[in-house]
């Protein structure tokens, strides 16, 4: 689980010795995030985002459990109960704003975390399992956030539920029956609201379980690092505590400043005013869009306006939207370059930045009305998105000539190895 030079946990206090013999929980913590876990010495701030994501999950669970004490999952009073939280419950407004904006902050953090994986090739062997678990976590996060957004039972909640569950009606033959079964009715109503609440409460704890597996899988090879060169000797690593507890602590401080600025000064900036109108099954808001974190995928959904061969446009859009994320599952095998870090990959680096721009463009179109020119731009951007994974990536990984890699992490930090061996670890 770790490198042979890891510090060994040696409790001195008799109580800790007793505890260690009965239930070695402190030992577990020491080896996971303490001085007993050696970590590459050259991690940059991109490596903060895993811990930040975990922190966001804790914020969501704590604020969510408190909201659930005051929220009523009944379509007649759900909207009123959220207003009750906002106006009558002590600090209720803060819990709700912290939770709603916490979801956005969570996605910002996770998108940066995923980008780190793309840039530094963290998805490559021996870390495929960490990556695959991460993609599953991301899918569950999307499901959780979607169902949470339905709970306040405003106009956006209702029509979001209608449109997103409508995706399932695209499935041939069983689609409509499945749609009715999922909703527990022909349209979103009390039955749907109740099951969404139940699942919205459950899924975060499933995510906690997967996060534990994610970190377990991480601790087998240990963290990668910005060079992508594996750890070779003790001089390549420093103990997690105090080095990375301090670095992560600093990052957490910066995160909290930005997050609090959002919660306390712009709490509705990312929301939609329409969601302060109670759900009305008779009228769709003029401009319905999902939350910003779904926009790129929503743009892909809407990019299909013509039937394609035998496949109706509606099914095509739904398939494309889901495949956009399914692509990620195959990433470790689509990118065959043995070099992990984009630092040493002159071609891949540029294509990756183009992909980032492409996703931002998709996001912009996804948040705009379904009109020209946005439809056409989404179509081009969606095609490029899939080209990147299915064509560009495999070709680039065989054509590209990577730049020379440093011999070791130590060499990349301190210069040539002989000198490094003389110096004390920085």
């Amino acid at each position, binding site marked *: 689980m770790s490198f042979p030079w890891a510090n060994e946990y040696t409790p001195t206090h008799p109580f800790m010795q007793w505890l260690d013999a009965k239930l070695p929980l402190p030992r577990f913590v020491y080896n996971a995030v303490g001085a007993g876990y050696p970590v590459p010495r050259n991690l940059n701030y991109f490596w903060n985002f895993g811990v930040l994501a975990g922190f966001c999950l804790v914020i969501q669970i704590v604020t969510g459990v408190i909201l659930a004490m005051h929220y009523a999952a009944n379509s007649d009073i759900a909207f009123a109960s959220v207003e009750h939280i906002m106006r009558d419950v002590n600090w209720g407004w803060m819990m709700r704003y912290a939770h709603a904006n916490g979801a956005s902050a969570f996605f910002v953090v996770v998108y940066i975390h995923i980008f780190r994986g793309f840039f530094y090739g963290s998805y490559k062997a021996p870390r495929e399992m960490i990556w695959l678990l991460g993609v599953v976590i991301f899918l569950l996060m999307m499901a959780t956030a979607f169902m949470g957004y339905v709970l306040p039972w405003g106009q956006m909640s209702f029509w979001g539920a209608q449109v997103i569950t*409508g995706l399932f009606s695209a499935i041939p033959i069983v689609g409509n029956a499945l749609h009715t079964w999922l909703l527990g009715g*022909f*349209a979103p109503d009390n039955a749907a609201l109740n099951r969404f609440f139940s699942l919205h409460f459950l899924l975060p704890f499933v995510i906690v379980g997967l996060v534990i597996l994610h970190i377990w899988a991480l601790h087998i090879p240990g963290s990668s690092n910005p060079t992508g060169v594996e750890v070779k000797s003790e001089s390549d690593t420093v103990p997690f505590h105090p080095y990375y507890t301090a670095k992560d602590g600093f990052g957490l401080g910066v995160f909290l400043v930005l997050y609090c600025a959002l919660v306390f000064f712009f709490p509705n900036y990312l929301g939609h005013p329409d969601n302060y109108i109670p759900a009305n099954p*008779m009228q769709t808001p003029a401009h319905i869009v999902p939350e910003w974190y779904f926009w790129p995928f929503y743009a892909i959904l809407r990019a299909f306006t013509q039937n394609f061969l035998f496949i109706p446009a509606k099914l095509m859009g739904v398939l494309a939207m889901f495949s956009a994320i399914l692509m990620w599952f195959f990433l470790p095998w689509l990118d065959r370059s043995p070099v992990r870090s984009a630092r040493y990959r002159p071609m891949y680096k540029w294509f990756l930045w183009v992909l980032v721009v492409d996703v931002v463009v998709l996001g912009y179109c996804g948040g705009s009305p*379904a009109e020209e020119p946005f439809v056409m731009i989404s179509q081009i951007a969606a095609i490029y998105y899939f080209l990147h994974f299915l064509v560009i990536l495999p070709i680039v990984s065989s054509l590209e000539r990577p730049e020379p890699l440093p011999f070791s992490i130590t060499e990349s930090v301190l210069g040539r190895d002989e000198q490094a061996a003389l110096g004390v670890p920085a």
Partner: protein
Amino acid sequence: MFRKQPVFVRNLTPKEIAAAYAVPLSSLRDPQTLAERTKPGHENWLITMGVCTHLGCVPLGAAEGEPRGEFGGYFCPCHGSQYDTAARIRKGPAPKNLEVPDYKFTTPTSVTIG
């Protein structure tokens, strides 16, 4: 309202009826004539669900002054599906015409849906 979903009832003008018949069936994604979508003798009464067959929004065009799209029927603002004066899908991502629920005329001036 039927099954907690809106129903559109529209009294078509002779011009709209003519426009619906002028479209060649082969050009339709979900080919149906206006006659198949209304009751004999009540061809001017177009009764459909107000639920877009794409992902279920309520299209615009049932009320005075709302946009009716390029084909003069209904326009769904969610992802841009456009329906014609027989509420048939003409453009955009929706696969089917607006659904015609089961209904019958109980008197010349009233219908029962379901």
